């Protein structure tokens, strides 16, 4: 209802690919009836939620922002979607992303780039100084980060309570940092991947985007646990938890991995990082510098493993069973080639090509096997650090705040991904839980977040610490007055919405 009108008024953000207006209203109605009967299905009953468009949703288009799946309607729900619906959640729509989640800007999808809601915030507008008078006033909007940029923007602009993203190398935490929301990447195997269209099966996890840590814990509680349809999920049942208010952090040991002081880290973020460390120290926590020596090899190995799995996972899109099929009918092979040329963008095709190269018989040992060995070393680095008594690692999430779209597209997707995933993908390589907590605004008035990395399956501890931190930093609420103006300018026929 209200969310749907907000989605309309913020349509210029391009956060949603599909808005499931009819089904959402129906679900909301059903939920209202349940509440009136006093029989809600659970904590999420009636709660509006958006889902990244790489999760299968029965009856609602699932496109992966690709020509290949434009118009594709899945016959089944992803396990996480089903769990949300079973608890009465209202599925508002499907959010925008980079094509097949390959990117870090949410700029490389077939439905166009997502605009960061903070571009239209009072905080950003006040600080923004046009470089020249000739500059178009509307051209300074910044990217959301990615690839779950649509989900982050949807949460940030209040169009939904929570959104599902996916996180393979940082795709949930990165846009969360840029959009000033909480982004949780759970431990690999804690939440079912069944129905998530894969990028890298061995690293993908469904991600959770919310406005606060408590909300993330609630959504996690309703999604986590064994799924017989995903053999990589934990066997045990998961017990949902409520987060306590931490009063004493003196027993806590926070590790500051020195390798995360990466080249290109902005001085602003570096300062914020050390301020955060001091915050813990002053509160009585033990803060120690630690080393994860193989971190610097992580991003290149991530690239090899990612592209190899991409090449394999994308092989099914051949135009035969579903999705786009080219008109080319000279031979099956030429139909395959044309279908894949027309269906995938350059980024996807580039990754398929390099992935296949790494998997060739003569290259497999030198690339794939080596990358896997390094992956093991990276995971062992974390095991050692956590074994030495460190509870939580504190790192930056991104190198800098969000850049304007016009800046972002000056570099190609591969270069951007290598820069933007650098601080996040190691947690995926090791399968560890990690969370972005919005921390402060940059000099330009844009959100900056910090990342906490926890022990495997220790989400409760991780979130408890994140909640304590969240309370200390008091991250400001987005002032979206600009939407009103934009609303009138772009969608004059629609009723305007106001934010508090």
């Amino acid at each position, binding site marked *: 209802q209200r969310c749907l009108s907000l989605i309309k008024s913020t349509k210029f953000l391009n956060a949603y690919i599909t808005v499931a207006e009819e089904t959402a209203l129906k679900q909301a109605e059903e939920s209202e009836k349940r509440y009136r009967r006093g029989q809600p299905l659970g904590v999420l009953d009636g709660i509006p939620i958006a889902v990244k468009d790489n*999760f*299968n949703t029965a009856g609602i288009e*699932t496109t*992966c922002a690709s020509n290949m*799946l434009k118009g*594709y309607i*899945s*016959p*089944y729900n*992803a396990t996480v979607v089903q769990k949300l619906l079973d608890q009465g959640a209202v599925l508002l729509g499907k959010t925008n992303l980079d094509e097949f989640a390959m990117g870090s800007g949410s700029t490389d999808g077939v439905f166009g780039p997502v605009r960061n809601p903070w571009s239209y915030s009072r905080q950003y507008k006040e600080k923004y100084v046009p470089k020249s008078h000739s500059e178009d006033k509307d051209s300074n909007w910044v990217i959301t980060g990615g690839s779950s940029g649509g989900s982050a923007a949807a949460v940030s602009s209040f169009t939904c309570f929570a959104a599902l993203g996916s996180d393979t190398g940082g795709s949930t935490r990165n846009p969360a940092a840029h959009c000033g929301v909480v982004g949780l990447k759970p431990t690999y195997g804690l939440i079912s*991947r*069944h*129905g*998530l*269209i*894969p990028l*890298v*099966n*061995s690293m993908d996890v469904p991600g959770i985007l919310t406005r606060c840590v408590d909300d993330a814990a609630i959504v996690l509680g309703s999604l986590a646990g064994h799924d*017989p*349809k*995903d*053999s*990589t999920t934990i*066997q045990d049942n998961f017990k949902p938890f409520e987060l306590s208010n931490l009063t004493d952090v003196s027993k806590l040991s926070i590790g500051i991995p020195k390798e995360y002081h990466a080249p290109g880290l902005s001085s602003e973020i570096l300062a914020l990082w050390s301020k955060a460390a001091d915050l813990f120290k002053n509160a009585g926590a033990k803060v120690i510098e630690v080393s994860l020596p193989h971190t610097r090899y992580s991003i290149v190995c991530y690239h090899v493993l990612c592209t*190899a*799995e991409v*090449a*394999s996972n*994308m*092989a*099914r*899109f*051949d135009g*035969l*069973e*579903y999705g786009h099929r080219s008109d080319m009918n000279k031979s*099956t*092979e030429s139909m*395959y080639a044309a279908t894949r040329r027309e269906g995938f963008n350059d980024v996807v095709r580039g990754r398929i090509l390099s992935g*296949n190269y790494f*998997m*060739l*018989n003569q290259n*497999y040992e030198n690339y*794939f096997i080596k990358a896997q060995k390094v992956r093991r070393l990276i995971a062992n680095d974390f095991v050692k650090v956590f074994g030495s008594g460190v509870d939580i690692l504190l790192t930056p999430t991104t190198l800098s705040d969000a850049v304007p779209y016009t800046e972002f597209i000056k570099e190609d997707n591969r270069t951007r991904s290598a820069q933007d995933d650098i601080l996040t993908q190691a947690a995926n390589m090791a399968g560890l839980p990690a969370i972005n907590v919005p921390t402060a605004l940059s000099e330009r008035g844009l959100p900056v977040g910090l990342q906490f990395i926890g022990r495997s399956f220790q989400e409760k501890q991780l979130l408890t610490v994140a909640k304590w931190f969240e309370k200390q930093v008091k991250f400001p609420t987005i002032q979206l007055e600009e939407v009103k103006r934009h609303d009138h300018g772009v969608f004059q026929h629609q009723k305007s919405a106001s934010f508090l």
Partner: protein
Amino acid sequence: MSSIFKLYFPSLFFFFSLAPWVPVVGLEIHAQISSNSKLFSGSQVQFAAPPNSLVSFFDASLPGTLPVLNRRCVEAAVMTGLALNCSINKKSLFDRKHYFYADLPAGYQITQQRVPIAVNGSLSYSLCIDNKMSQMVTKTVRIKQIQLEQDSGKSLHDDTRSQTLVDLNRAEGQLRVDANVSVHHPGEPYGVRTEVKNINSIRFLAKAVDYEIQRQIEELESGRTILNETRAFDSKLGCTVPMRDKEGKQDYRFMPEPNLPPLILYDAKSLPANMNHQQVVNIDWIHERLPDLPSVKRAKLVERYGILPEHSFTLLNEDGLTEFFEDVIKQTQMKPKKVIGWILKDLLSYLKQHSLKVKESPVSSFLLADLLNRLEEKEISSTAAKQVFAELWKGEGKTPLEIVKEKKLQLIQDQKDLEQICQAVMAIKAGNRKVLNKLIGLVQRETQGRSNPVLVKQLLEKKLSE
């Protein structure tokens, strides 16, 4: 997806033409596991089901679907591994094998390339030399590995509309063999091999391999070379022909299947106490439930019934014949050594003549036992019994007794009758002890085999001594 295992038989045997050539044959055997559902999905397996009627979202490779291993298939693979003297890998891995083909919807096949479920086995078998059952030789083939593998779909080509339709129920053939063949001179390195693909019966396999060995020898002896190529067996022409292979050599780009954790098997020792037994596969448990293997069964048959070893082979080689034999034994007083003759000479040759399986036999074990009891009780002669058997084979629902009565095949016990007959015979032939047997034969002929030969012999002896 049906489930497939591969057995590699790098076997070695000798074959002589003018110059000595040694062929080397390796077989990759795809055998469908008899299970209710497919290897990686909950879909059913059913022979001749309508196309695409048994396809899950995973089988159609819909985006986002994941494989879930079928426990029954794992148990079947372990059981096969144990039966074939393999060592069972307590940890085995799944791989993806990539190639584009219309009936492979995912663009890859899940298989066990690197660490399969069972390795290094052997299978001993006996064969007779020059078709003489008494000269059995035992040989052994080595088995490289048994692996669980997802089956591909089935392409159905519609030539009239130049369309290809794909049935994702997956291949229905229960057995498919690829044979690798090469020949070389003893002491020299192995020759270049060819692969004969998609052979679908044992008979064609033997023909294809024999043909391919002969072809390679002829090629080499006429100074030509063997190409490392894929060939197909043309069952109508009985020869192998090169397959169109325009892609050249395929690089399958194997990689670990990330959606299936390593397959861990347990034995009694390693089985964790807190594990749900429904969720684990226990090798020892399967071992205990392994039925007797053929060699053990044969030894038991020889020991229990005193039959010849070569007869035990025939009993086991025919599906259901051992059970039939034992059923007859249970219902008759006739000695097993005599019963076996009826089973192998009469029943089996009738079955073969009519291309029937044992379970399709119109003569049940009950009827045969009834017949043999009458023979044993000397109600009928063995010659008459054969006639009754021929009548029973017609499957008209008559009992042996009814047939005996109807055809007047009762053994003639009446002394006067026989005396008369013998007298008649004697009138033709003058007495001579040496022709006694011949005379008995003549009496039998006269009585259509109904006379008791012992009685006839006594009578004839008496007559001769008169």
